[in-house]
C-alpha cells in the first residue's frame, strides 16, 4: 500500500524541499495471528521483545573501567564530550572546548571505546608537526593505545600501518598524498582543525577528499577570521548541515560579519555536531604557579669556557653550515654542564679524524678540565636543601636535557646524602613506572631528562627545577605539565637556573618571560607556536641563527627583543581569537547536557 504525502510545509528561504514518500507495510501477519485459534506464547513477551529490538543497545563508555586510574584522571565534562561525540553525534563531531580542558583526553576516550568495540581497524590522527610525538606518548601512556608516528624510524608509509599519527603537512605532501587518499580510514582525528578552515588550501583539500567513517575534529577556536570558517569546518564533518554557503550567510550571519543571527536555530544545528565546554562550567581548578628564576655569575673559568665555545661555534658555523645540529648541541651543553660538553667534544675528536678545528677543540677540553666548581650544581643544593625542610618528603624534580649532566648531579646529590632517583629514555616502561613509584614512596630528588614525557603523573611533587632550558617552549611546558596538572593540590614552584650573560639568560629573560611562557598552558602555547610555525622555521633555529649571526652584544640583544615582539604579537592574536570565539559562542549551550 502506498500513500504519497503532498507536503505543504512552510518553505524556508533558500532551498526546495525534497520529496517524501510514505509506505505502509502490510499487516497480514497481524491479521493471520488474529485468526489463529490460539497463540503459541505470551503476548506480553512478544511486546517486550519488540520493544527491546527497537531499543538502542545500552550505550555507555564500556572501556572506561579498563583505564588505569593512575595514568589518567577523567573529568566529567570529558567523559560527557566523548559520550556525546560517539553516541549522539554518530561519531562525527567537532570537539571545541576552550583551551586547557583536555580535548586530547576526550579523543583518547573515544578511540579507546572504539577499540573496545572493534570499530577502529584504521585510525589516522593528523596534528601540527610539533604536537605529533606528544599525541603519541599521551595515547600510549594514558590509554594504552599504540600509534606509529611519521617521525618514527619504523614508519614506512600511510598504507603500511593501521594506527598512524602524522603531521598534516606530511600527509598532504606530494610523496604521501596519494597513499593517504587511497585508503578508506575508519577514524580520522584532526587536531587544531582551524588550520583547515580555508577551503582554498591544500590542507582543506586533503581533508575534503579523505574518506573515513568517523571523524573527530579538535579546536578551541573554530572561528579564525570570519564566521565562514565555522561553515567550512562544520561542512567538512557534516556536509549540508548548514545548507549552502549562501544560505548560511543570509540566514546566520549578520551582514557586518561580526555577529551571528538566528542563534536558536544555529545552536540547534551546532548541537548536532559540536561540543564546547567552557572553563567556568567545569570543575577544573588549577593551583597557583610561582616562578623563581635565579641567575648566577659564572666563575671566571666558566666564563672563559663559555666564551671559547661560543667563539668556536660561531666560527665553525660561518665556515660550514652543515654542522648546525652538533654546533647547536655544543652551545646548549656548555650552559648545562662541562661534563656534558666534554663527552660530545671527545666523541668528535676521537671519532672523526679529519676534523678541521681539532686544536681549538683540544684547548676547550683543557678549559673544561680546569673547572672545579660548577656554579649551577652548587646553587642547586640551596634549592633542594630548602625543599628538604619545607616540602613533604623533600620531593623535588630536576630536569636536564643531558644524560651526562644528569649523572653528575645524581652523584653529587647522593654524596650529599640525598635520596636520588634517575629517569631517562634508556629505561623500559616497567622500569619507568617503578622509578615514579619509588620517587613517590621514598621522596628525595628525581633527576630526569626530557624522556619524562606526557602521560606520567607526578602531581604528588610540587617543586620543579629547570637546571637547563630547552630552546623549545613546548618542551618547557611539557616539563611543567608533569607536576602542574589536574590533581595537583598544592601550589607549584618552578625554579629556573641560568648563568648571567649566556644564551640561556637571553632565552629566559628576553623570550620566555616576555610571552609569560611559564604561565601558559600547552594549549595556549601551541596556538602561539603553530602560528610561528606557519612561517616555516622552528623556534630552536630562530634562536641559534640569532646567536651565531649577531655582530655584537648589542645586536644580539636587539635580535632577541625583535623575536620577543613577534612572539608577543602571536600571543596577543591567540588571546584575541580566544576572546572572539567565546564572544561568538556566548549563550550557546554546546556543552554538557543537563539531563
Amino acid at each position, binding site marked *: 500500500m502506498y500513500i504519497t504525502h503532498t507536503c505543504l510545509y512552510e518553505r524556508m528561504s533558500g*532551498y526546495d524541499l*525534497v520529496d517524501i514518500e510514505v509506505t505502509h*507495510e502490510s499487516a497480514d501477519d497481524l491479521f493471520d495471528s488474529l485468526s489463529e485459534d490460539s497463540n*503459541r506464547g505470551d503476548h506480553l*513477551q512478544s511486546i517486550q521483545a519488540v520493544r*527491546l529490538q527497537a*531499543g538502542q543497545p545500552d550505550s555507555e563508555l564500556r572501556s572506561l573501567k579498563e583505564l588505569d586510574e593512575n595514568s589518567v584522571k577523567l573529568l566529567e565534562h570529558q567523559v560527557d564530550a566523548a559520550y556525546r561525540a560517539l553516541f549522539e553525534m554518530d561519531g562525527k563531531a567537532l570537539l571545541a572546548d576552550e583551551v586547557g580542558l583536555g580535548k586530547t583526553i576526550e579523543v583518547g576516550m573515544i578511540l579507546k571505546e572504539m577499540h573496545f568495540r572493534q570499530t577502529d581497524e584504521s585510525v589516522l590522527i593528523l596534528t601540527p608537526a610539533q604536537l605529533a610525538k606528544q599525541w603519541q606518548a599521551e595515547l600510549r601512556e594514558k590509554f594504552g593505545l599504540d600509534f606509529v608516528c611519521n617521525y618514527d624510524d619504523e614508519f614506512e608509509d600511510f598504507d603500511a600501518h593501521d594506527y598512524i599519527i602524522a603531521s598534516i603537512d606530511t600527509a598532504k605532501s606530494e610523496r604521501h598524498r596519494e597513499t593517504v587518499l587511497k585508503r578508506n580510514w575508519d577514524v580520522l582525528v584532526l587536531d587544531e582543525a582551524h588550520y583547515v578552515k580555508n577551503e582554498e588550501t591544500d590542507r582543506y583539500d586533503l581533508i575534503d577528499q579523505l574518506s573515513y567513517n568517523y571523524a573527530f575534529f579538535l579546536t578551541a577556536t573554530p572561528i579564525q577570521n570570519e564566521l565562514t570558517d565555522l561553515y567550512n569546518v562544520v561542512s567538512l564533518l557534516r556536509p549540508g548541515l548548514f545548507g549552502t554557503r549562501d544560505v548560511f550567510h543570509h540566514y546566520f550571519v549578520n551582514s557586518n560579519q561580526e555577529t551571528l543571527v538566528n542563534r536558536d536555530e544555529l545552536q540547534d544545528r551546532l548541537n548536532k555536531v559540536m561540543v564546547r565546554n567552557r572553563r567556568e562550567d567545569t570543575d577544573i581548578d588549577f593551583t597557583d604557579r610561582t616562578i623563581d628564576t635565579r641567575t648566577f655569575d659564572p666563575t671566571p673559568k666558566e666564563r672563559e669556557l663559555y666564551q671559547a665555545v661560543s667563539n668556536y661555534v660561531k666560527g665553525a658555523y660561518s665556515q660550514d653550515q652543515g654542522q648546525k645540529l652538533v654546533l647547536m648541541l655544543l652551545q646548549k651543553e656548555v650552559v648545562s654542564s662541562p661534563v656534558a660538553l666534554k663527552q660530545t667534544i671527545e666523541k668528535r675528536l676521537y671519532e672523526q679524524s679529519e676534523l678541521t678545528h681539532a686544536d681549538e677543540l683540544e684547548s676547550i677540553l683543557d678549559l673544561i678540565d680546569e673547572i672545579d666548581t660548577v656554579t649551577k650544581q652548587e646553587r642547586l643544593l640551596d634549592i633542594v636543601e630548602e625543599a628538604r625542610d619545607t616540602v613533604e618528603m623533600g620531593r623535588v624534580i630536576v630536569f636536564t636535557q643531558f644524560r651526562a649532566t644528569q649523572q653528575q648531579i645524581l652523584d653529587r646529590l647522593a654524596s650529599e646524602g640525598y635520596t636520588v632517583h634517575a629517569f631517562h629514555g634508556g629505561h623500559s616502561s616497567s622500569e619507568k613506572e617503578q622509578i615514579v613509584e619509588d620517587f613517590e614512596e621514598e621522596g628525595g630528588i628525581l633527576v630526569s631528562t626530557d624522556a619524562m614525557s606526557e602521560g606520567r603523573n607526578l602531581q604528588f611533587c610540587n617543586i620543579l627545577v629547570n637546571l637547563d632550558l630547552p630552546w623549545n617552549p613546548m618542551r618547557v611546558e611539557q616539563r611543567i605539565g608533569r607536576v602542574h596538572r589536574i590533581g595537583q593540590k598544592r601550589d607549584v614552584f618552578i625554579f629556573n637556573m641560568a648563568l648571567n650573560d649566556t644564551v640561556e639568560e637571553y632565552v629566559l629573560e628576553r623570550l620566555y618571560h616576555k610571552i609569560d611562557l611559564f604561565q601558559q598552558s600547552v594549549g595556549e602555547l601551541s596556538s602561539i607556536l603553530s602560528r610561528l610555525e606557519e612561517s616555516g622555521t622552528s623556534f630552536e633555529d630562530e634562536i641559534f641563527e640569532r646567536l651565531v649571526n649577531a655582530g655584537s652584544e648589542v645586536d644580539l640583544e636587539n635580535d632577541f627583543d625583535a623575536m620577543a615582539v613577534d612572539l608577543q604579537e602571536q600571543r596577543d592574536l591567540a588571546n584575541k581569537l580566544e576572546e572572539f570565539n567565546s564572544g561568538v559562542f556566548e549563550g550557546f549551550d554546546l556543552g554538557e547536557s543537563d539531563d
Partner: protein
Amino acid sequence: MTDAAVPVTQSAVEQFTERYLRSLGCSIEHSDDYWVVSVPDTTDTEIPHGKHTLVRGEGAPDGDDDSTKRLHPESAFFQRLLREAAERSPTGKLSIESESDIETPKWIQRSDVEVQNAQFVPYYDRTAAVVLFRVGIETVSEYQKEFLRAVAVDSRSEEHLPRLAESFLELTSVESSEAPSGSAELTQTEARPLLDTARELVINEIQDRLDEIHREASRAADSEVEEYRQLQEHRITELQEEHSNLSAKINDLSEQINTGDEDSRVQALRERKELKSEYEELNETLNELRERRDGGFPERQREIRERHSLDVQVTPLTLTEVEYERGEVDFELTNGSRGQTVTLGYGSGIGVTETVRCASCDQELSEQDPVQKISNGLECQRCAKER
C-alpha cells in the same frame, strides 16, 4: 509522545532472557558469571535442545563449542531470542485494572485544593486497539532513523487515546512479568479499520520529527546542487579559455595561409581544418553547457533531489486488544474548611476524560491555570486572584 523502545541494558537482557526461557519450560542454574540452561526435548523453540552455557556480559568466550553462548545486548544469542519471542504472539489481549490508583487531573494536582477521596464507578467495559509501529525514515544524507511508537484507538468510537498508549507502555515494561492477558477477540474485519486509523495517527504524531529530517535532507540536497553548479561554472570558464585559445590559433593559421609559401600553406590549411572541427565541437559542448546552466541543470537537480528524497516506512508489529473501563469518578475536594464533590468522566488507563471550565470565566482549567476556589462552583486561579 513517548518512545516505545526501551534501553537494552544488561539487566534488561538478563531479565527478559530468564523469563522467556522459563516460560518455554527451560530450567536455569545460576552462577556468578554464567548460567546453565537446559532446554527439554519437548520445547517448542529454535534453540537447540540440550544444555547451554550462557556467559554473562562481554569478553572472550570460554570455549568455542556450540553450547557456550554470550548473553549481552548485542550478542547473537540474545538477538535470536528476541526475534523468536517477537514473532511468537504478535496479537493478544491485555487488561488495565481499575483497582490501580486513580489519577488526579493536573489542574487539581497543581492547586492548593486537596483530594480527600476519589471513587471510581465503572459503567462500561471498553476495548481499544493498541498498535506498535516501527517507523523507519531513510535518506542518503542522514543515518537511517527508526522509531517505535504506540498508538491507541478505541475499538468502537475510533477515538484516539494517547493516554491509554502510555499506560500500555507502562504495563508492558521489561520489568513487568505478569499482566492479565489472553487471546484477542477482535476479528480481522473489526481490526482493519482500527489499524487504518492508527496508521494515520502515527504519522501525525511523528510529523515534527519528520519535518525536521525533511528539512535537513532538503538542505543537504541543496548544498549538493550548489556544489554541482559551481563545478559546472568552473568548467565553463575552462572551456571558454580553451575556446579562445583555439580561436587565436586558427587566426594565426589563417594569417600563415595568406602569407606563406605553397608548402607551408598546405600544411597550415590541413592544421586549420583540424582545429576548426575541434573548435566546432568545443563550441557545441560549451553552448550545451551554458544552456543547461541557464535552465538551472534541471535533470541533475531532479536526480540529486530524488536521491535525497525521504522514504518513510510504517510497519505495524504488534496489535493488542486492551480492555479498560469507563465510568465516573467522584473527587471529594477540600480547600481549608470548604468541601465539594465533583463527578467527572473517567477511564482506567486514560484518566479523566472530561474538560472542566471555570465557573466564573468559562476558561478550561489546566496545569497553567488550575482550580483555586471551590466554594462557588470551581473557579480558576486567575479569577480567584483578580478578586
